């Protein structure tokens, strides 16, 4: 599947440092986003460590494909999805380990949302409250569930989504990378279709901009970098209370008809 992508990160209008990190590995179709936490620049250390660890792990030769290093992976996940899950587990341990060895880093942590496209299969791994969305047929489908207190209360029917948006407890996370030596990593798998648009974003976007606005921007702007920039600008216009990071990946149209069959045929002979 041919994918075009781009990402933008911005410090916002209130904070002095940007604790978000992201990375796009185009040859692998791997997209990684992390939002760090912890005072005095340690949030940046945590999110950068998360992103680099996952990028390195997934870029290695596939020797351990399908082996589950940590946690429980259902058997029906593909090797790529398990591999992504392992990468996130390793990132968690490296942040935890670094904080143990460097007392000034105590309390640092990070959220993590990663998407990996192999063929038409999308693997998503996630810890924290950075989100992955899929724009399909003009509607946003949410691919992750926030590991935050308010989201858990919505899932249990204690709060409505509106109450959750207005809650003062939105910053309270139930899971993050670096807090414990092991972390439960949520993974999911789904199929991508032509014209799908994948969006990864930190909470600096979703707390400032509504889902219909996000959907509208992704439909109006087909260039991924411009779309990401427009979403960041919108978050900043609304106050930019937090760092904001956006990755947009667009699945290109498949070439159709007998010409593509001929091309496919010739490619096989090569």
């Amino acid at each position, binding site marked *: 599947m041919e994918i075009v992508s781009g990402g933008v990160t911005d410090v916002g209008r*209130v904070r002095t440092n940007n604790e978000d990190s992201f990375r796009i590995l185009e040859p692998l179709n791997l997209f990684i986003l992390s939002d760090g*936490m912890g005072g005095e620049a340690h949030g940046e250390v945590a999110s950068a460590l998360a992103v680099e660890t996952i990028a390195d792990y997934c870029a290695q030769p596939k020797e351990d494909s399908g082996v589950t290093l940590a946690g429980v992976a259902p058997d029906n996940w593909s090797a790529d999805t398990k591999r992504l899950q392992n990468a996130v587990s390793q990132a968690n341990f490296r942040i935890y380990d670094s904080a143990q060895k460097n007392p000034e880093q105590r309390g640092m942590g990070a959220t993590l949302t990663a998407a990996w496209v192999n063929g038409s299969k999308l693997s998503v791994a996630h810890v924290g409250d950075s989100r992955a969305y899929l724009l399909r047929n003009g509607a946003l489908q949410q691919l992750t569930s926030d590991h935050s207190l308010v989201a858990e209360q919505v899932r249990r*029917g204690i709060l409505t989504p509106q109450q959750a948006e207005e809650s003062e407890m939105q910053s309270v996370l139930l899971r*993050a990378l670096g807090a414990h030596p092991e972390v439960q990593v949520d993974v999911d798998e789904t199929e991508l279709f032509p014209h799908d648009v994948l969006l990864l974003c930190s909470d600096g976007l979703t707390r400032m901009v509504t889902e219909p606005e996000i959907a509208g921007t992704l439909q109006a702007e087909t260039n991924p970098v411009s779309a990401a920039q427009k979403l960041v600008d919108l978050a900043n216009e609304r106050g930019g209370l937090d760092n904001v990071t956006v990755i947009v990946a667009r699945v290109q149209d498949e070439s159709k008809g007998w010409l593509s069959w001929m091309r496919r045929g010739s490619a096989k002979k090569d």
Partner: protein
Amino acid sequence: MAKLSLMFEDKLVKQVPIGARPVTIGRSPDNDLPVDNLAVSTYHARVYYEAGRLVVEDLESLNGTFVNDLRVERATLHDGDSIWIGKHHIKVDATADTAIPLDTGRKAVAPKINETMVLDTKARRDMLQQAAATGERSQFSPGRIRMATLVVLNGNVNQKEYLLTNKLTVIGKSPMATVRLRGWFKPKMAAQINQRDDGYYLGTGDKVPTVNGAPIAGPVRLNDGDLIEVCGVRMNFIFRE
């Protein structure tokens, strides 16, 4: 006179009475209750009397001050309360004081937007239980998990029943689709169901499905017992326990 007892696990570290002067708590040795732990700020919090009430005040510490399980900036203390600072806690003994009615003066202070925090397992459980106890719409009881299920009534598909465990369930002819349609001229992706925090939403694909006979315009939230029809397949959306 009220007393504060600094505890580490079950061991008493130090005990001080509270007089007219505030009792200070922090990592620096010149505090009344010094706590030697890196998670504790130099001057972390103080406890003092104000208008006959015993008050704890967080001194903008990095990791926060908790009374029982609530993070506080300022809170009225009662006999038997515990102030948690890092891994230490301070027991409040105010038996000698006149009783102060509960539920006055205490207000949980939400973390500011720039202090994202992670709850540990115990704090998490307690907060959720607390929230569940006060929630009016609470339908949740621990141990009862509701699984969303599609039960096929008729139509040419690969299974009789589907558990909706993925965030996105695709109904279509595609080999990766969860509900796999069979037969000629079926679309790869006919419709989809998105699992969100507040429920399951049916959305259009290459076809417009109907819910209880009415075609949907955009994503609609499914209710227990809804009848879904797409590409000649009729299914019941139900919650199984």
